[in-house]
């Protein structure tokens, strides 16, 4: 690969991710609206929201770390996108791999945690305490899934994982070879997205008692952008591990949107779990299912 091509990929991959992520946010809102018998927002609403937040006149900063936290939250995902191969672009997939990506996805959480901490609002810190607890909850099944996939395909290079699945066709897809792990991954994914029933740490309905309490204007806008990346990353990662990635964008886009649509649909018909119940649930069912899945694939 020439330097120019690589550079183009490194620029394009986050951009594509951002646009697709915004479309996913739109889809999420549309699903919610349809379930609640509303029409839902127009096509460009996510973009309008971001522009509105960045353009607001009141932009309250609580200090440098508050700003750096938001920058880390966005920047971490921008970097993570280059490790995540999409059709036609592998980016840095061979330089990092699945483990690096899993750890890279923790950097935005850390950034958010630092930023909220600097705000000096005890309610925000409580939200972070919940967010980190939730991370400890869903990351354990997630890491079991990563291990299973890396073991089954014999590599941590995501581009190779896609290539292996595409060579073998649908029977070679992760979901066919390790169905139990795919179920565990789906539950973990629900938690990672921070949607119902696992959204107590985001607490979007009671902003005063969550990490967002001091986030307004472009700070909230940054977190909005982060959410676009986050949903996209999780959807693509799941498709990569279990659904054979995509040979081209025509097959790839339906896959990732379908994957993301599942947790979104579940989210809007569920109430919410308390933090300790999130832990209890995540450490029980997906972990048990995941370990059983590992036992099956490793026997």
């Amino acid at each position, binding site marked *: 690969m020439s330097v120019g091509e690589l550079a183009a990929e*490194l620029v394009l991959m*986050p951009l594509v991710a951002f646009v697709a992520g915004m479309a996913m946010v739109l889809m999420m809102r549309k699903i919610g609206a349809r379930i609640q018998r509303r029409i839902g927002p127009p096509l460009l609403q996510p973009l309008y929201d971001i522009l509105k*937040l*960045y*353009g*607001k006149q009141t*932009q*309250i*900063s609580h*200090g440098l*770390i508050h*700003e750096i936290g938001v*920058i*880390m939250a*966005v*920047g*971490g995902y*921008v*970097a*993570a996108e*280059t*490790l995540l191969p999409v059709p036609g672009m592998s980016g*840095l997939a061979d*330089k*990092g*791999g*699945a*483990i*690096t990506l899993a*750890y890279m996805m*923790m*950097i935005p959480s*850390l950034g958010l945690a*630092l930023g909220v*901490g*600097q705000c*000096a609002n*005890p309610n925000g*810190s409580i939200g*972070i*305490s*919940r967010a*980190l607890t939730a*991370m*400890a909850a869903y990351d354990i099944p997630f*890491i079991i899934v990563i*291990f299973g996939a890396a*073991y089954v395909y014999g590599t*941590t290079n995501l581009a*190779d994982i896609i290539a292996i699945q595409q060579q073998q066709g649908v029977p070679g897809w992760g979901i066919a070879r390790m169905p139990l792990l795919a179920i565990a991954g789906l539950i973990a994914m629900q938690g990672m997205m921070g949607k119902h029933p696992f959204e107590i740490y985001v607490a979007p309905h009671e902003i*005063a008692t969550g990490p967002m*309490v*001091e986030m307004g204007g*472009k700070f909230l806008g*940054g977190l909005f952008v982060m959410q676009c990346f986050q949903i996209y990353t999780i959807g693509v990662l799941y498709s990569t591990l279990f659904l054979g990635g995509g040979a081209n964008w025509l097959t790839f886009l339906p896959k990732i949107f379908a994957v993301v649509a599942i947790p979104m649909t579940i989210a809007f018909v569920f109430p919410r779990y308390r933090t*300790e119940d*999130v*832990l209890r649930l995540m450490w029980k069912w997906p972990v048990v299912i995941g370990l059983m899945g*590992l036992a099956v694939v*490793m026997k």
Partner: protein
Amino acid sequence: MTALDNLLLMSAFTALFALLSGNRPTAGSNLTVLYGGQCLALALMAGLGYGGSASIASSLSFDILGHALHWRFDGLSWFFAVITVGAALLSSWFASGEWAQRFRARGGNLRLFHATLAINVTSMLLLLASGDLLSLFIGWELVSWASFLLMALAGGAAIRYALRYLTYAFAGAMAVLLGLVLIYARTGSFEFQALHDAAAGMDQATLWWLLLLLGAGFGIKMALLPFHLWQAKAYAETPGPGSAFLGAISSRMGLFAIVVVFVQLIGIDRLVDTPVPFTFLSARDLLAWIAVFTIIFPTFTALRQHDGRRLLAWHGIGQGGYMLLGVLMADDLGSAGGLMHVFNHATYQAMLFMSVAAVMHRTGTSDLNKLGGLVARMPLSFLAMLVGIIGLAGLPPMNGFVSKWLIYRALIIEGSPLLFVAAVIGTLGTILSVYKLIHNTFLGQLRLEHVNVEEAPLSMLLPMMILAVIVFVTGYFPGLVLDWVAAAQASAGLPVLAHHLGGVAIDKGGLDMIWVVSVLLAGFAVGALVFFAGNRSKRVHQLDNYAGGHFLSADTRYQYSDNFYPGLMHLIGPWYRKSFRWLESGLVSAVDTLSLSMQGLYRAAHPSFYLLAVVVFILSWVVL
């Protein structure tokens, strides 16, 4: 005079100098220069670290009862020695300025501090240089005593914890001695080579005894479960720079000894061939599980601490588990990860201890419930702690990520899902706990009494900043350290890791940190561009925030600090049973009872009769 002689003499001179003039105001900086001299002596042996030469002998050697004692350095010793001397250099630098004045003003014995630090270094270098089992034991004892001195230095509670350590260390030393006697009985020699040759044909029973005795003895120094109780309190109560030094390297001497005896001499293959009776596990699996439990339990104990130093000390125990786990993998990736983690851990752990010590220097406390908001007053100390916690948590771009990545990768290749998941659970616990550390110290609301706190003095900041640079640069270019690790692997008889400046290139998913870190920095740059493209933000006072309708006045500060993770503790709180403490106290009372009954036997009952019996026995033995 060989290069090793230079180093040992230099080190001995440093200790002597510290003893003679450790009380002078300039002693700290002079000693720092002397440690620099030791670094230079190590640099002259750099061939060892780059696979240039196999080993450098010392002229120091003598015979005891026909056993030759000798000392030498190989790649493994050099690697540990670099960390030791480096940690001492920066700790002594940290202690050279205001810290020393304050320490003396509070009645601390500065001469003793400097001298014990220097003696620690000398004894560790002697241990690292040991060329046979006897010199290993001598070095082992010296190190135990030297670290006891450093721990006991602060007086008060510190003495109690140091004595507790001493009890453990004595038991460990006796176990090691027994192990060595056993080896001598089987091989008739204390030479490394003899054990190496005998190991192949050694029977299972002997191997198990060696594993139990030496494993326990060395494991105590490393604070492996279940011998971990002594360490956290003892390290935490050591005066600031001392705890940085101890936390960085002291307990890794246990790992060094384990690598020498079980990897270099006996060989991990022998452990793999040794099954645990009545199970499907091998001796190596058993050790790996001990390592994993050493990761998990202390890490989650750290999560419950509300003193910064204790929190870090507990993490130090947990991180030791990663090192042992990596070394036990015995392949090129895993063992490189384990050994590299020694270096990485030393760098960020020393920095974290220093950062906490700097906060203590300025505020007088390391109680996490009595701090907060200091980032506005001590930004550079905050930066040091930030870099340190990212390293400790093992996230990119810091060096801790690379070593943990190597260990994870090796576990995937080997196909050990449970060990892998357990290792990651440790990392998750670490992330939670270190965020609590930095939040409760530097973030949140600044307390009224800390409004006028100043940044730490330069003598403290510089060592921290140097360490921060090292942690970042060796994360960016891990090949710098992997060169040394490869040399250490070679001399320990492990498969050598093929690496490049950015990491490892294996066709089933490698790691190139130069790319990963570059793209991460670029991502931050993009994030910053996006952020600053928005409307200008306005800085407000930290108390100008939304309180959800509650009335908060400026003279009452609200800091969310105690019981930081109530949701988690709601679930796992009841799992903390203090079982190990219960075990320890059970052991203590058993020994107590035993000694009391013995005392009753020989002192209270019929002492003259026993005396008579003994005399008659000895006489009859002599006469007959």
